[in-house]
C-alpha cells in the first residue's frame, strides 16, 4: 500500500508538472491573441433563414474577448435569435435583411446561438 501511495504521489506530481507546463504555454498564447485582437474589426456572421432551414447550422466561430459581433440576417419571415450568453440575449429580425449588433463578450466561453422556433443551433461562438 505504501509503495502504491508513493507511485501515485510521483505520478500525480508528474501530471501536475505537465499540466503546469501546458498551461503556461496556453497563457502566452492567450495573451498573444488578446493583444492582437484589441482594435480589430467586428465579426460579421451571415445567417440565412428559409422555411424550416437555417444556414449555418452548428458551425463553431472563434471570437476574441471584447470583439464586437454582428449578425447579418436574411430571412423570409420575421423571427427571433437567442444568444445563450450570461446574461442571455433575445434578438429580433424582420423579413428581408436585418443587421443586428450583438455586442461584445467579456467572459471567455462557448456561447450557443439558437433559433428556438426552429429548435436549431445556428452557431457556437467560441469566445477566448
Amino acid at each position, binding site marked *: *500500500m505504501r*509503495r*502504491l501511495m508513493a*507511485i*501515485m504521489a510521483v*505520478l*500525480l506530481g*508528474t*501530471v*501536475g508538472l*505537465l*499540466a*503546469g507546463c*501546458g*498551461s503556461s*504555454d*496556453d*497563457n502566452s498564447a*492567450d495573451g498573444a491573441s488578446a493583444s492582437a485582437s484589441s482594435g480589430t474589426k467586428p465579426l460579421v456572421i451571415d445567417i440565412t433563414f428559409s422555411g424550416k432551414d437555417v444556414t449555418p*447550422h*452548428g*458551425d*463553431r466561430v472563434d471570437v476574441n474577448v471584447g470583439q464586437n459581433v454582428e449578425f447579418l440576417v436574411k430571412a423570409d419571415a420575421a423571427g427571433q435569435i*437567442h444568444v*445563450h*450568453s*450570461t*446574461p*442571455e*440575449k*433575445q*434578438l*429580433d429580425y424582420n423579413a428581408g435583411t*436585418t443587421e*443586428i*449588433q*450583438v*455586442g461584445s*463578450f467579456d*467572459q*471567455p*466561453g*462557448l*456561447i*450557443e446561438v439558437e433559433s*428556438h422556433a426552429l*429548435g*436549431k*443551433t445556428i452557431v*457556437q461562438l*467560441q*469566445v*477566448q
Partner: protein
Amino acid sequence: MGGDVTPLAHGIGGRQDLPVPLETAIVAAVAALVVSFVVLAWTVRRRTDAVLVEAARQARGAGSADALRRTGRSGFAERVGTLVDSRGWRIALRTVGMLLFLYTAMVAIFGQDLEINPIFGVFYIWMWVGLVPFSLLFGEAWKAISPVRTINAGINWLRRDTGASEGGGLYEYDEARFGYWPAIVGIFAFTWMELVYPHNSYLGPVRLWLAIYVAVMLIGGQLWGSRFYANADPFEVYSSLMAKLSVWGRTTSDQGDEGRLVVRSPLANVDTLAPRAGLVAVVSTLFGTIVFDSFRDSVPWLKFTQGDNIVARHAYLADNLALFLFPLAVAAFFCVGTMLTGVGDDLDRHRLPGLLAPSLVPIVAGYVVAHYMSYWWEGGQQTLVQASNPFSDGSNWFGTANLSVNFFFAYHPTLLADLKVLAVVIGHILGVISSHKRAIAVLPRRHMVTGQIPLLITMIGFTVGGLYLLFAA
C-alpha cells in the same frame, strides 16, 4: 433590431465552458495510460505477496475485512460518529431537508412561470448537480436529508408503526432480484427531462415531475420500507454511489443495520460497494447520459442532426433514442471488456461485469466533476441569488437577491481546463487501482497479467473517451 431588454421567460444554461485545449487533453491521456501500466506492472512484482490471499478473501467478503483492518479506531472518527449518530444531529439534518422540500414545493406551486423562478436552479442544479460535491465530501448526503424518507417516517409514526424491522414496509424489498433497477428508471426520467424534453424550463413540467417523484417515493416507501429508497430513489442512489468515494464509511454489522462511522481512504471505501443487481446498469446510465450531454453539443453531432438527412428530420426522436443508446453503449463496452478478462474455471464470466462495476464509480465521478464543475459554481450561485425572490416580485427573503455571481472559472479557462482533466485522471487512477485489486482476486495466477489487459483497455477507453469529449464538445 436588437431587443435584448425583454426579460427572458425561459431557457436554462447560458455560456458554457470552452473546450479543454488539445495539449492538456493529450497530456492527461498519456498520464492515464502510464498510470494504468504502472499499476499492471505492480501486479507482476507483487503477485506472490500476501495481497493475493487478502484479495481472495476480499472477493468473497466484499472487502469488509480489509476495510476494517485499514480503518483503525481513530478517536476522531469515534467522536464524529457519536455526533452524527446522535438524535439531535439526525433531526437537524432532516429539518434542513424538510425546509428545502417545503421551499421547493412552495415555489413549484405558487411561483411564477418565469426563468427567474428558483425552482429551475433548485431542481436542475442544487438537487442533481449539488448532490455530487456534498456526497463526495460528506458521504451519504441525500440519505441524511431525504425529505421523502422523513415524510415516510412521519406516516409510519402516524400509523403507530415505528417499524422495528427495516423501516416498516408492507413487503420485503427483494434486493437480490430488483436491486438498483427502479433507480435507473428515475435517473432516465430525470436526464430525459434535463437533456431531451424541449419544455424542460417551463414550470408545469418540472412541477409535474416532482409531484410524480414524491408520490412514487411515498407509495414505494409504504410498500417496501426504507430499503426502497436505497434502491429506487434516483437522487439517493446517485448520492450514495458518490459517497463511496468520500472518506466516510460505516462498518457492516450482522443485523444489516448501519454500523459505526469510520474514516477510510476513498479506495478502501469503494471496495465496500457490494455488487448488486443493476449496478452495472446504474453506473452506465449515469456515465452514458452525461456523455450524451457532452456529445450533443459537439460540432459533428450538431451538423449531422441539423443537416439534411433522415435523422435530422426526426431530431427529437433521435435525441430520445440517443439518451438510451449512449448508456447502452457504455454498458456493452464495459461488459465485453470485463468478460474478456481471463478467469479460472470456477467463476462464471457473466458475473464479472457486476463484480468489477464498483471500479467504474471513480471514473464516472471524475467525469461528472469535470463536466459540472463550472456549472455548479455559477449556476449554484445564480440559484442562491434567485432563491431570495421566490415569487418573482423583487423581494429579498434571505438577503442574497443582490449578490452578484462570481465568474471565477470563466475568467480562468486554463485553470478550469487543468482542474477538469485532473479530476478525470484522478478518477481513472482510483478506478484502475480498484479494478486491479478486484481483478487479482478473481483471476487465476497464470492469467494474472494478460488477463487484466482487456479490463485495462476498457478503463483507458472510458477515460480517453471522456477526455476527447472535454476537448471536442
